[in-house]
């Protein structure tokens, strides 16, 4: 479980996060939704410590992340996996080396052990025979899957996914969503997904937090989101041609 308590973050005069308190439950896909620029990515980066919050606290299973020093955070981060928007695969490493990187850095396993683990997680994300390919030789969907494989290679307790569907076609997006959900259920991970894709919300949203203008505006799940009468949320949910026609 991850808990955000009264988080505030500003960049100069621009107050991006306003007093956000939220609990992200273990073994569930916790979705953060909102328009572009609403503060979703900043919230995620504050949760993982890439941005320091101006005030507020973050707890990982009751461990106060905000008060940890560099070494303590380093240890905790080995329990975190993160999928970035563009995958963030290391350009100078092939697929196998990318997936094995955390194992090389933080374990004393033998090369064979690491290779077995890399092949296992690559198989888990439905990728085989791509070990020698460089990131530049992969499609967008494959890059995301390799990034997921790298993120889960150390058996993380917490998985963060920042816009996992950006730049992907609807079908591939569905595959990535399904994969995230399966991995969350299978390993009982606390998963937090940033998205503005309503397909993702409706297919994997165990819990949904709607961020509007830097505030936590609404909380619910994939079932309750379609029944709310909140104006701002409805504007977001039914903002596209497709969803508004479906509503009608």
């Amino acid at each position, binding site marked *: 479980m991850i808990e955000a308590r009264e988080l505030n973050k500003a960049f100069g005069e621009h107050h991006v996060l306003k007093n956000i308190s939220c609990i992200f439950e273990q073994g569930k896909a916790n979705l953060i939704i909102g328009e572009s620029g609403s503060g979703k990515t900043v919230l995620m*980066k504050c949760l*993982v*410590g*890439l941005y320091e919050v101006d005030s507020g606290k973050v707890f990982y299973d009751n461990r106060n992340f905000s008060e940890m020093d560099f070494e303590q*955070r*380093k*240890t*905790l*981060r*080995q329990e*975190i996996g*993160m999928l*970035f*928007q*563009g995958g*963030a*695969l*290391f*350009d100078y490493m092939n697929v196998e080396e990318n997936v094995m*990187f*955390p194992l*090389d*850095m*933080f374990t004393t396993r033998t090369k064979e052990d690491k290779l077995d683990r890399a092949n296992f997680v690559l198989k888990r994300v439905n990728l085989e025979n791509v070990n020698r390919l460089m990131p530049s030789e992969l499609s967008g969907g494959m890059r995301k899957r390799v990034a997921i494989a790298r993120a889960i290679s150390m058996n993380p307790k917490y998985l*963060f996914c920042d816009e996992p569907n950006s730049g992907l076609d609807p079908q591939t997006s569905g595959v990535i969503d399904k994969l995230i959900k399966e991995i969350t259920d299978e390993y009982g991970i606390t998963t937090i997904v940033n998205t503005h894709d309503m397909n993702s919300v409706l297919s994997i949203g165990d819990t949904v937090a709607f961020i509007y203008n830097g505030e936590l505006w609404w909380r619910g799940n994939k079932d309750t989101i379609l029944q709310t009468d909140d104006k701002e949320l409805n504007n977001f949910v039914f903002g596209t041609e497709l969803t508004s026609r479906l509503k009608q």
Partner: protein
Amino acid sequence: MKVFTDIGEYLILMRKVFSKPQKRIIFWERMLNEIQGLGIESIGIVAFISAFMGAVVAIQTAYNIDSPWIPLSMVGFTTRQSVVLEFSPTVISLILAGKVGSRIASEIGTMRVTEQIDALEIMGVNSANYLIFPKVVASMLINPVLIVLSMWMGILGGWMAMVSFGLVSSNDYVDGLRVDFEGYTVFYAITKTIVFAYIISTVSGFYGYRTSGGALEVGQASTKAVVVSSIMIILFNLILTQLLLT
């Protein structure tokens, strides 16, 4: 005020850079790769420029000797002194600031804007140490080798020019090379080179590491790294010359 902020940020980054590597074996692997990328791949350009510059220095010296009282061996002596004292350590370091500095800044800058550095941080890796430290050590080890090569090529280029154009005989040139040779001049040149290598790798690493934005900002960081490294080299050239030669 911006200069002081930059210096402060640079020093904070250096504190992160100069810490114990997470895994020694990975550090060695990365350092050897950097020696290949930053040093070995620069051998061609260093040798080419040095040979031609040595030839030009020798020709200009020979051209300016019009008094019969000045021995022709002076051409070899002047070429050696110019190449060892100034041309190889300073000019080649400035060329390396352009070639290697832009490579370091753009490589690290691209990793920053594509979130690869964030990915390292999330995993618990000290990204500044992992990315910059091997480059600093590799540069400080390989640049002196390049500079010694440059000295040889410069002196050889001068000899070839003198012999091929018939301006000075081979014996006179070689005699001049041997006149009043002091090993300390080579020590001075190597010391300067090591300091310049440190400047090139850390300044370029700094500008690359703090890049934010996109491709445009990576280009700007790369340009700034080369400009600031070059200015620092010129500045420290004066300081080190004053300290070591007077």
